[in-house]
């Protein structure tokens, strides 16, 4: 492994988020990844601590080797050198619904305290102020993966008291509500934001601040959140290692497609 001696480390927010998200993936896991930072995180994990993680993309790639960062889940780069080039029906039906996906990796426009995600529209659903692309595979990943890792922009209006539309169900209204709604597994395990890391309490399934990014404070992150966020256990987010940054910049995204 290449070592880089560059203390003190400097890194961008996107790099910190990609590294923090990548660390959520364990070796040998089956990962179902969405477009953007989820892709960066999954590829970084594969090139660092989780070389045997198997990456699936909803457009049909199974076991992507990721020598070049794909620009989207349908990019032909997801297929080059992959174990299989299947289709949407195969990965959704036989992989995701059948329970073979350990971790789903998604992002969204609005997120609430239970990790429910809106990527459909803002305002009245029938007459929206702002329309987004819609679910894509996000709802399916949130419903059917064994756990989900979520990437989000941390602003008050993006983490509101109530989201306008539940595109991808998280813990719904907390407690057992997810199970009662008919979902047989899964639920969000972590939300990596631009300001910190949120996790969920075991029984209530309510989000709490697990860590705040360097340069911020727990209180400040709490104030930038639209719902009451318990910040009492928060610590500073661990910074990327020199090796992670080196791989991220030189192997994962040398062309700076997503890295800023």
């Amino acid at each position, binding site marked *: 492994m290449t070592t880089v001696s560059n203390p003190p480390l400097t890194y961008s927010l996107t790099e910190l988020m990609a590294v923090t998200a990548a660390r959520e993936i364990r070796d040998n896991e089956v990962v179902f990844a969405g*477009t*953007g930072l989820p892709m960066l995180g999954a590829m970084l994990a594969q090139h660092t601590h989780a070389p045997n993680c198997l990456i699936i993309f*909803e*457009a*049909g*790639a199974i076991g992507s080797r990721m020598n070049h960062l794909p*620009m*989207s*889940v*349908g*990019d*032909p780069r997801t*297929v080059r050198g992959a174990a299989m*080039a*299947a*289709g*949407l*029906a195969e990965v*959704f*039906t036989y992989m*995701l*619904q059948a329970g073979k996906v350990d971790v789903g990796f998604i992002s969204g426009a609005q997120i609430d305290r239970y990790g429910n995600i809106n990527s*459909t*529209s803002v305002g009245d*659903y*029938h*007459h*929206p*102020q*702002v*329309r*987004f*692309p*819609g*679910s*894509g*595979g*996000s*709802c*399916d990943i*949130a*419903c*059917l993966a064994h756990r989900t890792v979520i990437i989000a922009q941390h602003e008050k209006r993006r983490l509101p008291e109530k989201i306008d*539309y*539940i*595109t*991808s*169900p998280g813990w*719904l209204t907390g407690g057992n*509500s*997810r199970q009662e*709604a*008919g*979902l*047989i597994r899964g639920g969000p395990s972590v939300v990596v934001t631009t300001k910190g890391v949120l996790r969920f309490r075991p029984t209530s399934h309510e989000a709490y601040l697990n860590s705040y990014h360097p340069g911020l404070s727990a209180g400040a992150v709490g104030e930038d959140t639209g719902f009451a966020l318990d910040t009492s256990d928060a610590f500073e987010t661990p910074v990327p290692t020199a090796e992670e940054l080196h791989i991220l910049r030189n192997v994962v995204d040398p062309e700076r*497609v*997503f890295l800023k």
Partner: protein
Amino acid sequence: MASKLIGLADAARLVPDGATLSLGGFTAQRHPMAFVYELIRQRRRDLYLFGHSPGGDWDILLGAGCVKRVELAYEADEAFGTIGPRWRRAVQGGQVEWEDYSNFGMVTRFQAGAMGLPFLPTRTMFGSDVMAKAALTAEQRAADPRTSPQKLAVIESPFQPGEKLILLPAIHTEFCVLHVQKATENGLTRVEGQTFADNIQALCAETVIVTAEEIVPEDELRREPERNFLPPFAVKHVVHVPLGHTLTRSTNIMITIRAS
């Protein structure tokens, strides 16, 4: 063997105003763009589109005023454009009737249609507003018999008391248009690289039109039948359109730009 070859303009003329139509490809990949441009050139109106994750193909049809109603999961070019701008404007301006499903939901609906079943059960969408809310009103549904009278239905498994499943209605379209790498004059079809859900969409359409990068002798495709995608009887018309996917992407099609 009878040739199914026709010209692009003639092929597009087969699709009347108000037709139900699905197009091959996924977000920014391998859409039958030349066919789409021809529909716009011919000023087609009131199209009723079904898709999982369309991109620039639908977006430009929406912008050109060709579309009345859509059923979909996602409309964007992914990393190239995180929202279809004309899709956004059409929804926000009340210029299109739409219904939201998830990607797996739409693929399941195409599968039901292709299998000759009225519906298929799934475990996805529970707890979400994709399940709870319908964009199309009962009146809008009743006004067009091609729209399912209900968005979905929830049942209890007859074999497992207490286990809930969502039934999603089958899709049958009048037309499906695909852009593929290779086809024979009589409609034997090969797709290279990612297949998305193209074959499933084709098998639930009354009339399948294939635009092909290359028209090849049948013996060539019969040498490796395991790589073929649709049998000749499933394809009604074949159109020779090199670079018919431009400007979306496709496996094994190179665009060479020469300075003149």
